[in-house]
């Protein structure tokens, strides 16, 4: 029943992030890639919004994007993935909704 939502745009310059979060169900998951990983910037509003998500919502980020942007001090709940993990994640959820 659960959906993997994927975001790849900056939460600071784009509305996809703020539109997506209210739609996450308790068993859904969120994968941040590309500029959406800026949402992990410590102390930022988007980072706070992520922390406020239900504990049951799993939050993932693409490791290469986090590393490229030198984002450190990740919230403990965020799990980093390589591409093999990314593929497997899409298998674990029933559908994938990319916010194009």
């Amino acid at each position, binding site marked *: 029943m*659960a959906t993997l939502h994927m975001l790849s745009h900056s939460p600071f310059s784009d509305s996809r992030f703020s539109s997506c979060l209210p739609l996450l169900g308790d068993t859904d998951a969120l994968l941040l890639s590309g500029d959406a990983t800026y949402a992990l910037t410590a102390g930022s509003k988007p980072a706070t919004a992520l922390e406020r998500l239900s504990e049951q919502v799993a939050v993932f980020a693409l490791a290469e994007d986090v590393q490229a942007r030198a984002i450190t001090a990740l919230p403990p709940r965020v*799990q980093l993935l390589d591409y093999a993990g990314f*593929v*497997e994640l899409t298998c674990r959820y029933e559908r994938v909704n990319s*916010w194009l």
Partner: protein
Amino acid sequence: MGADGFFIRVAGVSCRLFRNGAPMKFVIALFAPPHSPAARRALRFAEAALAGGHEISRLFFYQDGVHSASANVVAAQDELDVAAQWNRFVTANQLDGVVCIAAGLRRGVLDAGEAQRYQRPAANLAAGWELSGLGQLHEAAQQADRLVCFGGQ
């Protein structure tokens, strides 16, 4: 959900400890041009899907994704040539690569037939791709386990 595998963080990068199981049939749709990070991300995902033992039943390029199937893109010497990499990937793995014809025409990505039909100076669709309709996206989605889309401006 989540019962059959978990991720641990090792030096900042997680490793998959348990494989999830049965191979899946993927349709991968790309909506972004080759210079977009999404085009590279989609390719790396596609490569990982095959490496993970899954099947890619179709690739479908739509909207600005049609440019990622262009044979006319000239990448700078010190830049990644994503369009060329996509073409090599499709050809080497004998994948079914479809470019939406309506989206292609609108954006000037044509095969020889369409260039002739519309009297345009160039056919620029790369060799590994075929122009076809959105019906191909639906047909593939009907048979696939997962439809994964990449792109967005």
